């Protein structure tokens, strides 16, 4: 059973603006799914549809086989949501905020207090627990928001730009927590971001969204394969040497290869043909390369 299932999911605002256009996607349980796209691509709309805050214009979606439209409370019971627009109470302290959301999730006072303290400690907010949220820095408020989304121990976590505005140390704490939840607790993480390098470090699979359309979905090797992004073998040779069939990129000569296995043969060929080889490396396509290939192809098609 897929943790998240979307079929032809469409959302139109006022019948004019199409925020999401026929999105069909299955996300398996466990792991971190990166939902990539620029601002306005429809990522937040997708999260709002999956959590029942918006009604789809067309199509269906389920979270662990439960429709957010028909059973919003049950979906909220197993989902934690952290978005930029879902804020917490400024006049309450960090601890009071978590205690309130724990009680709103049905925990009794004692259990809620314990859970709040546990999260405050694990997200480095313990020292600021009795400060009002309005006095928190952006990074602290962001971490508290993550703590709030985890307060009821969700099975699915929807995160919208969880590290935007965070300093490197805070971002590291947040990332460590997300990884630990996915790897150790089996939580399915649906991570919306436009930071591609960040997504590559964290995610197992990706979906590329642009203007409400899903361009591609899958893990990095699958995405590379379907768009034709290949590994390149690069060589630094003695000055003035120009091997045949290679392209020059700065002081490197490069060529595309199908797999790692081609590398020893290429090295041998260059040496045998009398080239002085100083350095050799395999460069794999990054998520950024793949992402821009897809968006460029889309532009060409349009």
């Amino acid at each position: 059973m897929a943790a998240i299932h979307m079929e032809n999911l469409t959302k139109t605002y006022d019948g004019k603006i199409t925020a999401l256009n026929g999105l069909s996607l299955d996300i398996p349980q466990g792991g971190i799914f990166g939902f990539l796209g620029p601002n306005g691509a429809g990522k937040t709309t997708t999260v709002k549809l999956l959590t029942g805050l918006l009604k789809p214009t067309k199509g269906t979606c389920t979270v662990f086989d439960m429709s957010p439209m028909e059973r919003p409370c049950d979906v909220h019971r197993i989902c934690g949501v952290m978005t930029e627009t879902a804020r917490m109470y400024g006049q309450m302290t960090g601890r009071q905020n978590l205690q309130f959301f724990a009680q709103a999730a049905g925990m009794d006072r004692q259990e809620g207090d314990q859970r709040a303290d546990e999260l405050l400690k694990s997200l480095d907010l313990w020292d600021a627990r009795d400060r009002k949220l309005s006095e928190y820095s952006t990074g602290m408020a962001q971490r508290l928001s993550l703590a709030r989304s985890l307060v009821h121990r969700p099975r699915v976590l929807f995160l919208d730009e969880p590290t935007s505005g965070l300093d490197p140390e805070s971002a590291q704490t947040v990332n460590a927590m997300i990884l630990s939840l996915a790897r150790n607790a089996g939580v399915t993480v649906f991570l919306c971001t436009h930071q591609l390098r960040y997504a590559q470090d964290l995610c197992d699979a990706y979906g590329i969204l642009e203007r409400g359309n899903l361009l591609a979905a899958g893990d990095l090797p699958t995405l590379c394969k379907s768009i034709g992004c290949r590994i390149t073998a690069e060589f630094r040779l003695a000055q003035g040497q120009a091997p045949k069939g290679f392209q020059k990129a700065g002081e490197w000569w490069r060529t595309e290869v199908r797999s790692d296995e081609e590398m020893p043969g290429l090295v041998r060929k260059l040496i045998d043909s009398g080239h002085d080889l100083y350095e050799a490396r395999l460069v794999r396509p990054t998520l950024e390369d793949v992402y821009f290939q897809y968006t460029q192809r889309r532009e060409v098609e349009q």
Partner: protein
Amino acid sequence: MKLLTLPEQAVVKKDFGEIWSTKMVRNTMILVPVIMAVFLPVLYVAIICFVPSDQINGADQMLKLLPKEAAGYTLQQSMFYVMTNMICPMFFLMIPLMSSSVSAACSFVGEKERSTIETLLLTPMSLKSIFKAKVFGCIFLSAICTAISFVAFSIVISVGDILLQMPFFLNWNWLILIFLLAPAITVFGVVFMVLVSGKSKSYMESIQTSGYIVLPLILLFVGQFTGLFQLNALFLLLAAAVVIAADLLLWLFAARLFTPEKLLK
């Protein structure tokens, strides 16, 4: 069976804190009762007791409105009767109306304005449960405010009764007003504000809109002094019935409009 579940109680408690920490709401909830239930009645008692009756403007016209049961009162006693039974009820009704609408504005529109309503809607609480907790919280707070105001008002008027040697002021009019009309108006103030909350973008805008619901009270005030009608137990009972019917209709309507799509618009 508990009136409110644990999560609902948490929402009520949170709303109390939020309403109280909003300076403007807190000031309104303190100042309106102090002015309507203490300051104005004290001022009237002082004027009646210490200013010679022939120097009070329009006293003769006011006395013409006196009902039969006030026959035989002295001029001062008659003036006090008019104040207690015709002027003060209108002033007093402003308290549940203002406290309920202002607290509902803070609870519903304020939450929307501060973008915290989305977070609340993402909790496992049902929409019905959130709506119920928020409405009950505002009604409860307004009821406390009205009850305290009535105690203070009773003390002031009792002092006037003693000074002017009149019977205790509490009559059928006041009993209907306190136990039927004031609670009905409290509910009206809250549900009206919930309806307005869907369209208001800011808390201040909703407070301005709430000004319209004071109009019927002003009309009542003006109406009885023009001799159009007189505030008696039957009239108040009828008014309470009308407001209760309006409450039921508005409640159903407001609950229907309380949806994530409308709230997050």
